[in-house]
């Protein structure tokens, strides 16, 4: 969760504002209470916008919903604090879960519109369902926070309660993004295909974070209702959303400290820009504009260097044979696969087997269907005909992450680039979720070692050479402990020396029982490496045999003639 400097920073950010506000009293206490309330909503927004990278415009709606639930429970139903608070968390979370399935699969601009539409509907209901919501006047007399036998009426008590809830929210936030989960979420956001190919269930992760973000928003809204004693449609207006967005962007969407910093800063802005009177939102807009242009990482972007912990010493007990735990002996079998795009048949009745410990080369000119075949095998594309079998089970319709969990891994022709993840973190993200941290670190070190990357587990992704990026992608694939590995042009862009190193690595993997299917476009890499080569041309297998046979095969040579007179 939080450790070292991060822990101190978070503790300081929780204690100092509260202590300062109590010391200053009065107005400052009210502002800090507001800042604490918003920090909870912003923390939730960091989950969806920061961690998932999805521009939701519904966080203000969840906030308002939480406020209304607390208002209704307090005014109409006379519920006590714990019950009304829990309901204020549950109702937005329930709404999020209900809309998640259709909404979370939308593309960014439709996702923004859909979440905005939901917010508008909520606002319309809040204004017009007068019998329940009190309409434009809202609900008056929301009771103070009362625990059985304990009344918290003083403004100090409210401040401390709000910031205690914020501390609890930070604990939940930490649990949701703890350790390797953070790396997995970064991989999911920056390279979703690679994340799926590594066994990460994208849909489930998104659902959990979206629902959690709604609950955070609801909690903040509930506290807001208690804090001002009134719930009016203003809590559902777009202004709340813009405030949360501005706090998130300005504070920094990547670190929970950003939620607190952004909320404290923007809560004070109206005070500092007093000359703008009620038009302080101009200052919000200007601050948001400056932040998005000049400091896209927000305030915590500046803290990042300081927060970077000194590198932990590499674990000693690294596992040199990451594949040895795999269920070796599983065979991949592609049977009679067909796939066409817009009338062109990219893959036309291809069958192919990869046995344990076997290295199969897949060769063919541009457009012959190699990549499509790999995509079908790994689940990124689905075939029109034919089936994919893995061991004893048919996986034709399985989703990519299910295949990865079953032991079928792949690398990508363009290795996923995630500059914000250090190589070690990148590989850790791919280690099985159930593993304990020590085991995972040992596994990740072993995988990096196999890929020839021992020297740089702390470098950032941006500083890697093309060969290192390919190696890292291979290490990522190995970390999911596959029994069959599909490699899409692993040698592209590599120098002759690097290719030799890669070949040695692949051979030793195969000798441990891993089955390999390697796509390449010429024979020099595959010739000394493979047991068997399959040559594709216009979606069909035109030659198959030992590398020597295929490189002399007239049909294979003809495939490289291209369409012309051949």
């Amino acid at each position, binding site marked *: 969760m939080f450790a070292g400097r991060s822990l101190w920073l978070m503790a300081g950010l929780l204690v100092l504002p509260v202590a300062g506000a109590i010391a200053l009293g009065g107005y400052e206490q009210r502002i800090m209470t507001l800042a604490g309330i918003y920090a909870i909503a912003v923390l939730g927004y960091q989950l969806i916008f920061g961690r998932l990278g999805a521009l939701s415009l519904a966080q203000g709606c969840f906030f308002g919903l939480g406020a209304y639930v607390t208002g209704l429970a307090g005014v109409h139903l006379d519920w006590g604090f714990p019950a009304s608070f829990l309901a204020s968390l549950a109702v937005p979370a329930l709404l999020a879960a209900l809309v998640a399935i259709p909404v979370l699969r939308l593309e960014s601009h439709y996702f*923004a519109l859909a979440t*905005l539409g939901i917010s508008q509907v909520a606002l319309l209901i809040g204004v017009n369902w007068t019998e329940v919501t009190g309409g434009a006047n809202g609900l008056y007399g929301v009771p103070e926070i009362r625990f059985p036998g304990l009344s918290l009426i003083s403004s100090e008590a409210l401040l401390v309660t709000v910031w205690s809830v914020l501390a609890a929210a930070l604990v939940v936030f930490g649990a949701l993004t703890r350790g390797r989960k953070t790396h997995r979420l970064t991989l999911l956001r920056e390279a979703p295909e690679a994340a799926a190919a590594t066994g990460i269930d994208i849909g489930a992760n998104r659902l959990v974070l979206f629902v959690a973000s709604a609950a955070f928003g609801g909690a903040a809204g509930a506290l807001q209702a208690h804090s001002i004693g009134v719930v009016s449609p203003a809590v559902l207006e777009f202004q709340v959303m813009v405030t949360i967005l501005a706090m998130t962007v300005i504070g920094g969407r990547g670190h929970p400290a950003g939620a607190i910093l952004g909320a404290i800063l923007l809560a004070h802005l109206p005070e500092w820009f007093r000359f703008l009177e009620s038009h302080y939102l*101009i200052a919000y807009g200007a601050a948001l504009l400056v932040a*998005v242009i000049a400091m896209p990482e927000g305030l915590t972007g500046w803290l990042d260097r300081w927060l970077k912990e000194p590198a932990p010493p590499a674990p000693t007990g690294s596992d040199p044979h990451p594949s040895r735990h795999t269920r070796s002996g599983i065979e991949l079998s592609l049977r009679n696969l067909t796939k066409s795009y817009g009338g062109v048949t990219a893959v036309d009745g291809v069958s192919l087997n990869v046995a344990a410990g076997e290295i199969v080369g897949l060769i063919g000119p541009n457009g012959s269907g190699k990549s499509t075949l790999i995509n079908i095998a790994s689940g990124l594309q689905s075939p029109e005909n034919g089936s994919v079998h893995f061991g004893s089970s048919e996986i034709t319709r399985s989703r990519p992450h299910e295949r990865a969990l079953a032991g079928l891994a792949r690398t990508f022709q363009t290795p996923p680039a995630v500059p914000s993840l250090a190589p070690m973190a990148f590989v850790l993200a791919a280690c099985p979720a159930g593993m304990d941290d020590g085991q995972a670190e040992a596994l990740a070190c072993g995988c990096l070692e196999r890929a020839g990357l021992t020297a740089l587990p702390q470098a950032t992704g941006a500083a890697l050479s093309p060969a290192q990026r390919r190696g890292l992608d291979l290490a990522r694939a190995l970390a999911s402990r596959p029994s069959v590995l599909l490699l899409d042009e692993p040698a592209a862009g590599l120098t002759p020396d690097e290719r030799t190193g890669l070949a040695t690595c692949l051979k030793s993997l195969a000798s441990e029982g891993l089955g390999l299917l390697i796509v390449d476009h010429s024979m020099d890499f595959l010739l000394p490496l493979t047991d068997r080569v399959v040559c594709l041309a216009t979606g069909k297998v035109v030659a198959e045999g030992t590398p020597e046979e295929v490189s002399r095969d007239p049909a294979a040579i003809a495939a490289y003639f291209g369409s012309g007179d051949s």
Partner: protein
Amino acid sequence: MGDAVPQLLVNGIALGSAYALIALGFVLVINAVGAVNFAQGDLVMAGGFVAVILGELLTPHLGDATAATGPLTLLLTMLVMAAMGLLFSLLAYVPLRKKPPVSVFISTIALGLILQHAANAGFGPEPRTGPALLQADGLQLGPVLISMQQIAVIGAAGLLIGATGLLLTRTQLGRRLRAAAQDPEIAEAVGINGATCIAVTFALAVALAGAAGMLLSNQFFVAPGDGGLFMLKAYIAVTLGGWGRLDGAALAALLIGVFEVLMAAYVSYVAAEALLYAGVLAVLLVRPSGLLGETIQRRT
């Protein structure tokens, strides 16, 4: 009630054709830079206030009765707004052109907020009446009286939509705007200046928003907080009309206007709004890539 139908239809078409101008500008920017201009509605509002100011400046000189006052105000409003569009692109787009589109989305939210509250500070929250496009008596059709102002709004909006269409299809500049929007990289490689195209697109898009602002400001007044709803209508029109399609967005916007007026007259305005949002959510539920599908090859 039947007697009101012609006037309601005219009202709806007038509102819808103003929406169509807004949506047109919205799509032009989406096509050119791949980002949603969240401030498009606030720019409509700004156009309304520019028209209010220009109207106050011009009327003492030209007089209310002069037939040229309205059209001249419209023209000047569009020129001022085109300049504002250039400034807008310098602030909201140029510094972020190498960043992901979501950054532009946020910068336009920020600028929209600034516009809205600057207008609030300058003019106060109360609605103001913009200048009329035309001073004329109503048109008597049998028992029905139809407002000439509304007819003029429809005519002006139709003219502007037509002119935009001609600009885009019949002029070398328009062809270049479309080419640069469809494939910026290749446009640059075959000799087209992409940066100029984007600047011109923003100027045009904001001028259209400004025109809509003036056209709406007489009948519906203009207030600083109006922007959000205009932007939403444009956003919905683009989603229903096929992401990136100018004709689809304009048509959808027109239908939204008619739907809104008829629903408001026979049921209630709230029902019109709620059905509109529910409708677009239902569409996205069934067709996650929009009603007409996101055209893989973006067309104009």
